[in-house]
């Protein structure tokens, strides 16, 4: 009887290329040295998360962005003051009464391939919905930035950041909670 193959032998036999799975394309970003991953969800929590996203968008003026909020509280004037071009961002105010449309809106926006960056501000907890968003983000090769007040319990997001105030410099800086 043949002895079973080791994992390494199996990888060699099928021409496994680790870089295909490990190296994710990223949007470079001066405030986060490893960049924002494409085709994945990046979760951002903590006070200062919106300004962090604004700084990111300011550095990507050629990318088309959809910004979806469950209950619209964003002050767009502040984004423009922080250097985000107003024509770059399409806002969607889902409204609390239509919250079930949130998933449809985000999935359709990603599938249309019209946006390379999606920003979602919602506190939803549904892990299956999150998985569907992850798959759509991956196939659209877009970056989904998910703003929340607290990190989500599931491990679906590729990168989870929390913005914290540095006690020494008093500046807000991102802290990596997890990355895969």
């Amino acid at each position, binding site marked *: 009887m043949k002895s079973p193959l080791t994992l390494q032998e199996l990888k060699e036999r099928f021409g496994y290329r680790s870089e295909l799975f490990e190296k994710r394309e990223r949007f470079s970003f001066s405030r986060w040295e490893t960049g924002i991953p494409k085709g994945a969800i990046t979760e951002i929590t*903590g*006070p*200062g*998360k*919106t*300004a962090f996203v*604004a700084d990111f968008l300011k550095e990507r003026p050629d990318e*088309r962005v959809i910004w979806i909020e469950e209950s619209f*509280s*964003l*002050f*767009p*004037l*502040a*984004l*423009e*003051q*922080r250097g985000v*071009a*107003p*024509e770059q*961002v*399409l*806002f*969607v*105010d*889902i*409204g609390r009464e*239509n919250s079930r*449309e949130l998933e*449809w*809106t985000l999935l*359709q*926006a990603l599938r*249309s*391939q*019209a*946006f390379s960056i999606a920003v979602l501000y919602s506190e939803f907890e549904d892990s299956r919905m999150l998985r569907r968003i992850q798959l759509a983000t991956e196939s659209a090769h877009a970056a989904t930035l998910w703003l929340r007040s607290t990190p989500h319990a599931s491990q679906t997001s590729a990168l989870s950041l929390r913005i*914290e*105030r540095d006690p020494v410099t008093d500046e*807000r800086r991102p802290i990596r909670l997890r990355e895969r």
Partner: protein
Amino acid sequence: MRILAIALPPSETQQEILAEACLRFSPLVSLGAQAVFVEIGRCHLLYSEDSIRARTQVLLSRLGIAGRIAIADDLATAVSLARTQKKHRDQIPVECLPTYLSPYETTDLLDEMIASLKRLGIGELGAFLALPRRSIAARFGKIGLFCRENCEFPERVPLRPFQAKSRIEESERIDESYALIELEPLLFVLKKILDRVSLRLRGTGKLALRMKLSLSLTPHSHVTEPRPVFDFVFPFPQGSTNSLIPLFRDRLDSLFQRHPLESPIQEIRIEVLETVPSQGAQKNFFHRKEEELESYRGIVARLTDRLGYSRVFHAETVESYIPERGWKKTLSPPVPRPTPLPERPTRILKTPIPIHPIDEYFQTKHRRWKVIEMQGPERIRGEWWMNESEERDYYRIITDGGEDLWIYENRETGATYLQGVYD
């Protein structure tokens, strides 16, 4: 003059639709007797004869028309070559002589002459033209002579320009045995109709801003609404089936879930109610901006159709001293306006929340913050010309939890409110 002729079978009824769609190739299009003519002589910089042939073939297959194509220097020869699929003018059978008399209408004036010619063993145009004029005049009279002149100088027949109809309307009758009542088969038929609509729009250099879809249902006794009508208003002009179909699918899907069709559909009709001129640019092979713009417009149209116009927008800065009135919603690309105002919070509350300062704390009904830093004030006065004299002193406060709040004090009442967060 160089003419592309499309000869159509006698049963074909879509001649005008084809002519309209052909306007995309050349502004000079004409309707003949079961034929469409396109003057391509001055378009040689846009396409070659081979490519226009191939493009016309694609157009015919999209419209579902079994037409035959030929190119020649005049109308009658082009359509005769198309009908007979002969290579040279001299080989055209004498049965095509009425076309030389007039390519625009059918006539039986030459029936006797054609029969006589065939009895004489003259079956082709080359042989007919070899006959002396005098003998034609003696045998067939003035009509024969006129036909002979037209055969010899066919380019003398002028092109009658075709005027496209101002209203674009397309319909399809559904076979009763088909029992069309579900969305997917309906979309299948709709795609065919929308294909025709988009070809006509493109031919006439227009884009649709508003469309009406009407369905005629089988009038069974239980049917309460036998002719449902759906109005489609697009935020951006639409011209392609690919962008229109998802809009129709979304709308009809949500409608049919709430109110399924009561009986099978007998007829589907689409009318274009409002149009705008399209730019009519050629496809750019070196970048995908047009496709990206089309898919962007498509998704915006779908989102506005589903969520409502007020929920999908760009934000445009408005000159106002009142912070909450500092922007407005728009769907057209907003104009960036540099604002001299101090940095504003990224989040703003629709209704400011009253807060109460107690020692070094601010508190609402539900929360309490310890203030570790406070900056301000920035004084903002209401728009007095609008009879708003409210004066506010704004402060930026940093709390021990790292939050950065934007509060104001109403100078008249002394009340304090939380209005924004530097998130």
